[in-house]
């Protein structure tokens, strides 16, 4: 039988401190007030949410702030049913792309407000194209999870 060789168990933790900058700071201040903001590209006219300082395609500064709708249409979803070290969100959960009404890109968040324990039930309820709306936390701190999830309307 082949000899078993040793392995070294080790863990690495590193601290980082990331700057929000002015545009993202403003977006998260909006979240603390239960508002969602996008920025509009003057050149292509697209409304980008979360707010961006520039349009990735036109490569010009976005100048106009727009408060966007808190409801929209589900464009893609995945029911997540596995776990791994360092996972920031407890499974099972539904990762979802949502096209907020009046915007031009998809907003990534969670689908909730339904029983997540039975996947076959989930599959019967959750469909691309369905209307959903944001459900806010009572206590907010200017964080992306100030929205608990989006629920079916």
């Amino acid at each position, binding site marked *: 039988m082949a000899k078993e060789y040793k392995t*070294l168990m*080790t863990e*690495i933790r*590193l*601290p*980082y*401190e*990331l*700057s*929000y*900058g*002015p*545009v*993202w700071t403003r977006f998260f201040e909006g979240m603390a007030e239960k508002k969602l903001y996008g920025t509009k590209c003057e050149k292509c006219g697209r409304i980008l949410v979360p707010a961006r*300082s*520039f349009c*990735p*395609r*036109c*490569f010009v500064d976005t100048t106009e702030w727009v408060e966007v709708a808190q409801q929209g249409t589900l464009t893609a979803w995945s029911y997540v049913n596995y776990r791994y070290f360092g996972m920031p969100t407890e499974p099972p959960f539904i990762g979802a792309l949502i096209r907020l009404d009046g915007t031009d890109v998809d907003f990534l968040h969670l689908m909730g407000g339904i029983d997540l324990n039975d996947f076959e039930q989930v599959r019967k309820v959750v469909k691309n194209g369905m209307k959903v709306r944001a459900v806010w936390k009572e206590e907010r701190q200017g964080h992306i999870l100030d929205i608990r999830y989006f629920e079916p309307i």
Partner: protein
Amino acid sequence: MTKRVGIVSVAQGAGAESKDNFYDQAYRITKEVLEKVGITRDDLGTIVTASSDIFHGGISCANSYYWETTGAFLKNASRQDGESLFAFFYAVMRILSGQFDTALVMALCKGSENPPNDTCTLMFADPFYQRPVGLQETLAAALQMRLYLERYGITEEQCAEVAVKNLGNALGNPYAHRKGRYTVEEILGSERLADPLTALQVAPKSEGMVAVLLASEEKARALTDKPVWFKGYGSSLDHFYLGDRDLLKGPLRDAAARAYRMAGIADPQKEIDLAEITEPYAFQELLWCEDLGLCGEGEGGKLIASGRTRRNGDLPVNPSGGVLANNPYVSRGLQRLVEAVLQIRGEAGERQVPKEVKTALAHGTHGFAGQCHAVAIVGIG
């Protein structure tokens, strides 16, 4: 080389901590480098960036994050890890292949968001032998400095003179992070971090968004009246384990020889008008000058004592203040190149050297005691 590649535009951000986010800082420098020659993202052929995950705010696959900030949406682009002069060379290759007539080279590092440099460079060490001992770049450099002092009789004062010169030069550089008029005594009297290295002989941790726009010869002439031409490049890598290497005869000699051969330089002391050298530790400027053939072996101490490498000397080295003044880890090699280009174009402002600069050398290094080096030669004519 039958075809030529021109540097047509450069831009850099300030080294001091900014509360602006990474994404927006990068976008602004890209805009600036393009606008200086009046082109837009649409005109851009290809992009090669440099960044390292360990120096990247805890976000992995560095170029995923900043892809669109460099104008790369639906463009053919790539990335180099570790050394930004790698990215410069790769962009040169892409133009020489004939497939692109412009290439943006961009180095991205936001030091203020990262852990201390020593914490990051500890991660270069293997997890079995060297990391548990605590080997990182500062310790490796201290060991190298001890050897350097002892083998050639270089003095600690001569090493400190490098810091005096470079931090003083930085007073004329609006992008420099750390600057000031110091005495040798103050440099040597600063905190002993890893003896014989003192705090003012060790580079800081800086922001560094640095951009260089390259173009084929024809395109370069169309975009600017003052193209600076790519002349030569060389790089080399040493063995890994510190104890396997001669720390005073490193791979910079090979890298320099390759760059000089490509550039047709026979006597660097005569033909190089100015050098921008990566010296994260003060003494390394002297050692690297020896390896680059800018003085003889063991003569680094004499070189700094002669005053020739001052801003107004006949062989200015680091008139920008070098890496002791500004140390965005991954970006520093490309920043040296930007400074060399500014000097050739006579656009270096207060730090402009009084002599004519036709041919300049930019050097980058990373790894323990210079495990890897890259050398670029640029010039006019």
